[in-house]
């Protein structure tokens, strides 16, 4: 039993230490930026003039030490929210971000009530 606990704690620690090994991923950022002149393509997928320029600018911003969110906000300020594939949380996207979780919770509660009622009888 002791061996098991040892293995388990080792595994958990290794898993946790693994989590912090991530740094900023350029390609991930490019994938989250919409190419405005393309049909439903991201900047990463497109090779248009616009996409090339955005890549240059984003590279510069990363070199300046800007964070991922600062980069998105910069682009939103210049091009509007259309440019990012992950809509920022604000008053008119709140429904989009909250409702799925709300639906999930309501679903869980409904199932719980269905079962619980039977248990009481």
């Amino acid at each position: 039993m002791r061996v098991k606990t040892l293995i388990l704690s080792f595994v958990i620690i290794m898993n946790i230490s693994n989590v912090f090994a991530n740094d900023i991923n350029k390609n991930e950022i490019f994938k989250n930026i919409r190419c405005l002149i393309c049909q439903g393509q991201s900047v990463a997928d497109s090779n248009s003039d616009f996409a090339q320029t955005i890549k240059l600018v984003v590279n510069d911003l990363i070199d300046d030490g800007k964070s991922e969110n600062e980069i998105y906000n910069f682009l939103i300020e210049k091009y509007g929210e259309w440019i990012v594939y992950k809509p920022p949380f604000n008053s008119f996207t709140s429904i989009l971000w909250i409702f799925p979780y709300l639906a999930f919770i309501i679903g869980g509660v409904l199932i719980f009530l269905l079962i619980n009622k039977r248990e009481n009888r």
Partner: protein
Amino acid sequence: MDFYDFLNMKIRLIKIFICIVILVIIGTFFLGLNKDSIYDTKGLEGSYIGNIKLDHFNKNEIISKKNFAQKGFTLINFWASWCGPCKIEHPFLIKLNNEPSLQIIGVNFKDKKENALKFLNDNGNPYDLLAKDKFGKYSINFGIYGIPESILIDENFMILKKFIGPITEKDYIFIKKIIKDS
């Protein structure tokens, strides 16, 4: 009272609720059909341009806000010699050049210097100030995504109008009207 009694009581309400939700969705679809699904950045009119940084076309210096007209309007026009529609809008820019309270700043976009000079020689030079953006990086700061594109700003650097694509007769009249009304 258990869950089912509660459910039975509320069943009418739930039915009405479902109908309303579906009506709202269908209504949204209906209204959405009449909207244009192609995006442009015109929604940004009314916002302000922040830090301005451009390279001077001839001299080795940087153009910033202080080079802009302190009074009146400024039209920032992004162009290149390789861009066909730029030729079409050029006559309107030449005509606008006569307006005293309008400063026209041209930004030569991803272009070769000699080609750009030839273009201006052939078609005339309407620009009060000529800048260049060799790699297109500065244009991102102005929210440009294809040329020709022009931005009309006032002395506070507020965007009054974005002209996406070549400036047309209608745009020309619009700009003249704005200058006259001020």
